[in-house]
């Protein structure tokens, strides 16, 4: 187990390193003049040169990359081209709102998805199963911003039951904030429910069909007890990793959702930065989102290895 954990951690570090390389490579894919790109074609050459010097974009790529790596360790990603504020500060301000939205969405999606998936598995092939599977499939196929417009149209415009903008009054309680975040998180729930339900369903079906479940049935157990003691644990192991990867991807969905519902979060920050070609903010934000994904999958792998005695007890696995 210890060896497994150490190896998994080492892999995470390697992946993180590769992630910085990818982000850096994309940011520098064209031998472009950053300051020229920001200031436009008609700016005088001197101001372009000055801005490049100020941004450090006149230095060799290796030096720039080294600065990025150093920045990650010291939490210093430089300053925003656009506002001149430190990038770390900007991200810090917005990340908490995004986290609130993501957590609320997960708190709704995971139980719904797991219960929905298990319910579908128990009624495999019947109407309830088909409805859950089809809803999940449709939901996860539609982009978040499209789902959001439907929600605004139905819940905001036609029924008028939820606020359509997530701009809560200053100093609101957690409850009030959650109320304001409910519609944006519903948009995320609709998209991510399908993934989790599908996995929970598949896991449950394979556990239900497993020989050990038959063994339990032959012991004379009630179906409920068989489910509780033998099926669920094995059924939900694979769901854990899906929850983790979806947590990472949820932050991708935040881009559009935060824009539409005007949430002052990381997603909206990135979109704004993109429109202003504010590369320091953009690349730092991309790194943060990649790191969140990696931490989530790392935790999931560790949890799974703990719950699965085959990995936990293997001397060297």
């Amino acid at each position: 187990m210890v060896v497994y954990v150490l190896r998994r951690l080492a892999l995470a570090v390697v992946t993180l390193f590769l992630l910085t390389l990818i982000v850096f490579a994309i940011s520098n894919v064209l031998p472009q003049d950053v300051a020229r790109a920001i200031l436009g074609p008609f700016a005088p050459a001197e101001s372009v040169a000055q801005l490049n010097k100020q941004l450090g974009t006149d230095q060799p790529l290796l030096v720039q990359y080294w600065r990025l790596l150093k920045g990650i360790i010291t939490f210093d990603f430089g300053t925003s081209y656009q506002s001149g504020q430190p990038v770390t500060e900007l991200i810090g301000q917005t990340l908490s709102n995004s986290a609130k939205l993501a957590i609320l969405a997960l708190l709704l999606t995971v139980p719904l998805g797991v219960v929905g998936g298990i319910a579908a598995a128990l009624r495999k092939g019947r109407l309830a199963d088909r409805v859950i599977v089809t809803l999940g499939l449709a939901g996860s196929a539609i982009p978040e911003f499209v789902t959001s417009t439907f929600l605004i149209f139905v819940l905001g415009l036609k029924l008028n039951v939820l606020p359509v903008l997530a701009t809560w009054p200053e100093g609101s309680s957690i409850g009030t904030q959650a109320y304001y975040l409910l519609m944006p998180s519903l948009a995320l729930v609709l998209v991510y429910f399908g993934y989790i339900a599908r996995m929970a369903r598949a896991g449950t079906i394979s556990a239900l069909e497993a020989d050990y479940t038959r063994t339990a049935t032959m012991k004379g157990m009630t179906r409920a007890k068989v489910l509780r003691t033998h099926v669920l644990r094995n059924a939900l192991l694979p769901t854990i990793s899906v929850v983790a990867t979806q947590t990472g991807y949820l932050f991708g969905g935040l881009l559009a959702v935060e824009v539409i519902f005007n949430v002052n979060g990381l997603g909206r920050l990135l979109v704004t930065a993109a429109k202003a070609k504010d590369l320091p903010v953009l690349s730092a934000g991309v790194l943060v989102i990649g790191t969140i994904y990696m931490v989530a999958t790392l935790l999931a792998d560790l949890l799974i290895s703990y719950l699965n005695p085959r990995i936990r007890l293997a001397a060297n696995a």
Partner: protein
Amino acid sequence: MTAASSEPGLPVVAADPLAGADRATAALHVENLEVDFLVRGIPRRVLRGVSFSVRPGESFGLVGESGCGKSTTAYSALGLLPDNGRVAGGQALIAGRDVTHMSASDLRQVRLNDVSMVYQDPGAALNPTLKIGMQVTEAFTMLGAAKAEARDRAFEALRRVRISDPRGVMERYPHQLSGGMQQRVVIAMALANDPKLLVLDEPTTGLDATVEAEVLDLVESLREDTGAAVLLIAHNLGVIRRMCDRVGVMYAGKVVEQGPAAEVFDNPSHPYTVGLLRCLPRHGARKNDRRLDTIPGFLPQIGEALPTCVFVDRCPIATDVCRTQAPPVVALGTDTSGARFARCHHIDKVAQIEPTGLLSGADAEAREVEPILRLEDVNVTFHQNRRSIHALVDVNLDLRPGETLGLVGESGSGKTTLAKTILGIQQPDTGSRVVLDGVPLEGSTRKRPQDARRSIQIVFQNPDSALNRAQSVRAILSRALAKLAGITGKEADTRLDVLINHVRLTPRHLDLKPRQLSGGLKQRVAIGRAFAGDPRIVVCDEPTSALDVSVQAAILNLLADLQRDEQSSYVFISHDLGVVRYLSDRIAVLYLGRIMEVGPAADVFAGPHHPYTEALLSAVPSVDGAPETRIRLDGEVPSAASPPPGCVFHTRCPRRLESGICETEVPPLVEVEPGHRMACHIPLEELRGLQAAETVQA
């Protein structure tokens, strides 16, 4: 269901022999059971009226080839049919009550109190995420025992199935136990409710013969203790013969013959049973003495509409009446109660079914020729997590032209690694030499010349895996001809015809894909591919163990014919000693990657043999009845990562010497008789004395 007899004079049972009889008292009474499986909404008949009865305390066996419905019968009788299965007619009574139409809670009570089941794959039957102790304890808490009491009883139950360290095992997870241990745990759980009926579905099929013998011994003695009735399902006729009082032979969803096991096996009365038994290489039959009998035709597909007699299409004595009238249930022997019967119009002619002709060929006497292949000091070491696993240790072997070398040993003994090393798909350690015709070969097939590759080919165990399912038979064989024989263009077509003719395929098979062929035909294609370039050596890795016995016989005949015609040498791996004996000229016995014994097949089988060989031979349950004496192996195969010192076999050897030499000194592999080498500290004559009384039949 039974028509009037067309053969006056035979004692015909007018109605089903079991109807009404035993109903209330039988441990399990199955009557006219019909089961369908829904495939895309279309019901396919799988059981076509199965009837039999397991009396209290009796051991009843169901035997037949795959797809005959034996497992389905058992699952229906326990209410365990999959979602797409449904009972279309008939009954299955446990303790007098019909299980097929029972409420869920009644069924639960029956499972709780009256029946238990043991499955084929013990690894899958145990929950991988729960400790053994919890799983066994649970069986007792279900019966109403308090936690602490249940735990004590679980401990006792594990001890009862001869687990030496129950306390330790209870703290472990299933994956930490060997297959044999897992099966003991499953049996312990099955016996928790002191069942009136114990159903065993292929309980030893995935296990080594030595472990199989232990498990069967255990079941036998527990049955004597508990008095439980047993329904044993197995495709292995030897297992059934060993374990069962009575037996039912199933074919295409029907019991075609039934009776006391000894009578059915010694004096079969249905053409199918006769065929089944003759397919097996028995009584020490050899490839040069006789061809094996086969059953022509194919097993019917599930749900296929069948003529009145299900076996008629493959029956050597069928007449027109077999197609028009359902065969009568003919009672046999003196007992007319239906205890022994066969469903056949022509019982009187069964005895006249001719066996296939004998062969006049004698064993090849060319002993002194140069070996075609020579393995010199072959070692294979796997490195895993900083541990070295010695898969092969100092293996020295010769293979002569035209001979078959049989490789025998339990799983993990290194048989397959040895085969792979010969083929060049397993790189041996440096210093190992694989010499073909006096020329040392590279360890990897990629570095070998094409001519060496052509010379050494393989027939795999599972043709589904061995044939590319995206390619037609023509594409597979043409490519093999092109690469191995260098034949392309016009000539290739001619050669292709010759090749398929050799492996008894017809041109109409050429344009089919593997999935359109039966298992036996697929294996013929695989054999054809191996023989495309006139190989000198063909490695056969369990070539028939994925096949049913009737198909196995045909494939063995084919391999023997090809060897006679082409003079190729075989390295033949099989866990079935009867099959090895049939085909092999010499045998090498491996244990933990070391050769324990090697010599002419006749010597190795007749003895005196190495104690390990002796144990392997005596583990095999024989279709012809049990041998007098048995030696049994204790304990488990040691880990190849830390082999025992001295003789690696000493930890399990029943003939270990008192002097302690076995524990300390490695016995050398020395020639004890001409051409017969053995690695044992016990002198040959002493072994002869010890083994004298024991005539072991394979």
